[in-house]
């Protein structure tokens, strides 16, 4: 068992390195394909061509792409993410500040969304095809299907504009207390939660319902057990594997997919950082942020596989 676990972790880590490498290549090519560079973006369209050229020469943008990529790669392997082209600050320092905020947003959302999603899934499975099930399913389908910015603006309109209960802009800062933070970030957390709860609820419901046809569920019924006990004690423990996968997928989404939400609520997270960096064609910052996102994916999915294994009694208790 431990060997198998070690095997999985090791393989995933090696694969993860290749994935990170591939992602960095794609990002470089992608930014290169965009019109303009950091100098034309910062100096504006009215700038003298000679000023732009001097700026380019200063930042080393005249080197061919593969040379610049190579320099970046060598530095990254040595642990140096470089400095921002736009403001000359350390990329790692910028990311460090923002990463905390993004993780806070994801963590708070997960704290609410994961238990609520699974609980709603269990309830919907227990009372499947009843009014409760239809209500839960319809609501979650609606939130899944609406674009996230739309949900965000609707929430903002109701709670910030009409009711005035919550701030529309989530400008968190390190000096805030936990409660203050929670209040300021309530709307982005709620938006993220609405979307992710729906995914997790639907997967939980589907995996439990598909298990309900198993012979051991019929056996449990014929032992005279109550429907609640059958679902919680007999179906849920065998449904963990797919549920874990979807929970992790959503955790990854909370970290990586928040770009739009962060922009809407002007939340100072990684998503907002990468958007600004793309506008400025600030390649080192884009690369650094993308590396953080990709690492989050690799680590979370490795975690999902390990947890799925641990959730399987056949693998936990070998013969």
């Amino acid at each position, binding site marked *: 068992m431990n060997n198998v676990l070690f095997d999985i972790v090791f393989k995933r880590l090696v694969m993860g390195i290749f994935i990170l490498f591939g992602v960095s290549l794609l990002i470089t090519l992608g930014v290169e394909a965009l019109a303009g560079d950091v100098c034309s973006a910062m100096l504006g369209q009215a700038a003298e061509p000679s000023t732009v050229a001097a700026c380019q020469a200063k930042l080393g943008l005249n080197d061919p792409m593969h040379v610049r990529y190579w320099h970046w790669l060598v530095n990254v392997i040595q642990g140096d993410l470089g400095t921002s082209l736009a403001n000359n600050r350390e990329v790692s320092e910028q990311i460090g500040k923002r990463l905390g905020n993004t993780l806070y947003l994801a963590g708070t959302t997960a704290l609410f969304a994961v238990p609520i999603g699974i609980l709603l899934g269990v309830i919907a499975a227990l009372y499947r095809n009843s009014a409760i099930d239809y209500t839960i399913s319809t609501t979650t389908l609606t939130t899944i299907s609406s674009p996230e910015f739309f949900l965000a603006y609707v929430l903002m309109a109701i709670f910030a504009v009409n009711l005035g209960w919550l701030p529309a802009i989530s400008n968190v800062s390190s000096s805030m207390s936990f409660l203050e933070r929670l209040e300021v970030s309530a709307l982005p957390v709620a938006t993220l939660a609405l979307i992710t709860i729906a995914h997790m609820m639907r997967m939980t419901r589907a995996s439990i319902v598909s298990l309900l*046809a*198993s*012979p*051991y569920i*019929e*056996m*449990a*019924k*014929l*032992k*005279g*057990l*109550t429907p609640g*006990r059958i679902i919680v*004690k*007999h179906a849920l*423990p*065998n449904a963990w594997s797919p549920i874990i996968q979807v929970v992790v997928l959503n955790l990854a989404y909370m970290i990586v997919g928040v770009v739009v939400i962060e922009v809407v609520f002007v939340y100072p997270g990684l998503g907002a950082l990468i958007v600004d960096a793309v506008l400025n064609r600030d390649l080192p910052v884009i690369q650094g942020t993308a590396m953080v996102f990709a690492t989050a994916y690799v680590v979370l999915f490795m975690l999902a596989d390990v947890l799925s294994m641990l959730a399987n*009694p*056949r693998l936990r*208790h070998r*013969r």
Partner: protein
Amino acid sequence: MSEKLLEVKDLLIEADIDGEWKPIVNHLSMTLERGEILGLIGESGAGKSTFGLTALGYAKPGCRIQSGSIKLDGVELVGKSDAELRSIRGNKVAYVAQSAAASFNPAHTLVEQFAESPVQHGNMTMAEAVKRSVELFRQLDLPDPEHIGERYPHQVSGGQLQRAMTAMALGSDPDIIIFDEPTTALDVTTQIEVLGAIKEAIKERNVAAIYISHDLAVVAQMADRIMVLRHGNLIEEGNAREMLANPKEDYTRLLLNVRSTRESRYDHDEEDIQLKVENITARYPGTTIDVLKNINIEIIKGKTVAVVGESGSGKSTLARVITGLLPPSQGSVRFHGRELTPDLRSRPKKDLQSIQMIYQMADVAMNPRHKIKDIIGRPLEFYLGIKGKQREAHVLELLRQIEIPADYADRYPAQLSGGEKQRVCIARALAAEPELIICDEVTSALDQLVAEGILDLLLNLQKELNVSYLFITHDLAVVKAIADEIVVMYQGGVVEQGTKAEILEPPFKPYTELLLSSVPEMDPDWMDNLIERRKRGEAPTAESIAQAD
């Protein structure tokens, strides 16, 4: 008056078949006295499980109890609320399912599942239930009864699980236990041990039982009284001994005759050897255990070699080696004297075409989204290059050979019965015009009468086409019916091989005798006598074989 423990009267159960309610239990009645064992027998679709489960007041999903009465100890179950029914299930009436492996929850230990009924029904505390489990595990001859309960279902064998499930049913001292084909998934040698343990346990406690099976010989060992069902109707009911000695209905007679033996058609001509397996040793990648040890087998053109053995004896692995799915670590497979490439992927098409396979589960061996004509037509096109109109004509000819109506060509597998599906699989194998067909447990998922039909078909096709069969099975009745030569396998090795007459007539080798003696016979005293003989050491047992090994 509640002398009868169970009294079911004029019960009509309907099932939702394609949106229409159709009767599957057609106004049936039954009674059960305390301590009595009633056998329900019939083919699949006879309604025997559905009928048996009514003692729990339970209708399977998609079924409903339309009318009639079910009285348990004088109390009417029809129309009771779910909560009231729950207080009966697992408490007064318990259930033992067909596949213990699938019916135990993989996420919990045996004793947790054992204790669930008595504790949830408020009959025992957890500690009492654990104590009782040890008692019952011991009575059902489970090894290490004190600790086996701490294991998970996947950590014990199929036979042990079935015993544990019987123990679980006995756990809350029920009045009735329903056994739903409890030994169908087991090897013959395991089956007799489990049957013996079950019979002893329920007789000792004077528990009444409903024993559901498609195997009349098995029911004959267990039941005092037998009801023969077909298509939801009662065919015949009576005392077990009387019915076996003197069946009144033709259908019962048919069921009784399935095990009769055909005479051997084997002649000792030394024809060309078609396939020769030489010194094959094989293991699965990444493992260190040889699943096959130094196997030698010859198949003669137009003949049938049956490979028999329990599950885990390596017989299906042998098929994988011959077809090239599992390259052996030593030895070779020769076809007409020429060595076949060990790996399937580098075999020429001609070799692939010569050896075809038919599988146990016809259901999963066919693509559910392909029509029958495409399933059969694909090998025609792939191997023989037959296309278009010609292909259509060939498909119809093959359907005729397998005795399936021509209009089935446009159907999908799901629209066919189990036997018909297996026939289509046979046609697909034949379409390639092979010289050898490997049949892997092709009848073990089918009812006995349907299986008979498939075996007849295979024998007729052999006469007509002179194709050879390698017939893998654990069912000795099948072996008797169709084999020319028999190879007996045990734990990856061949313990005996020879012509049918040599193997199936005395003197026997001990393992062969164990296998042969374990096949249930249509004699109600057969099992009790055999167990007695085994206790006295006059007949081999699984332990005596393992020790001699």
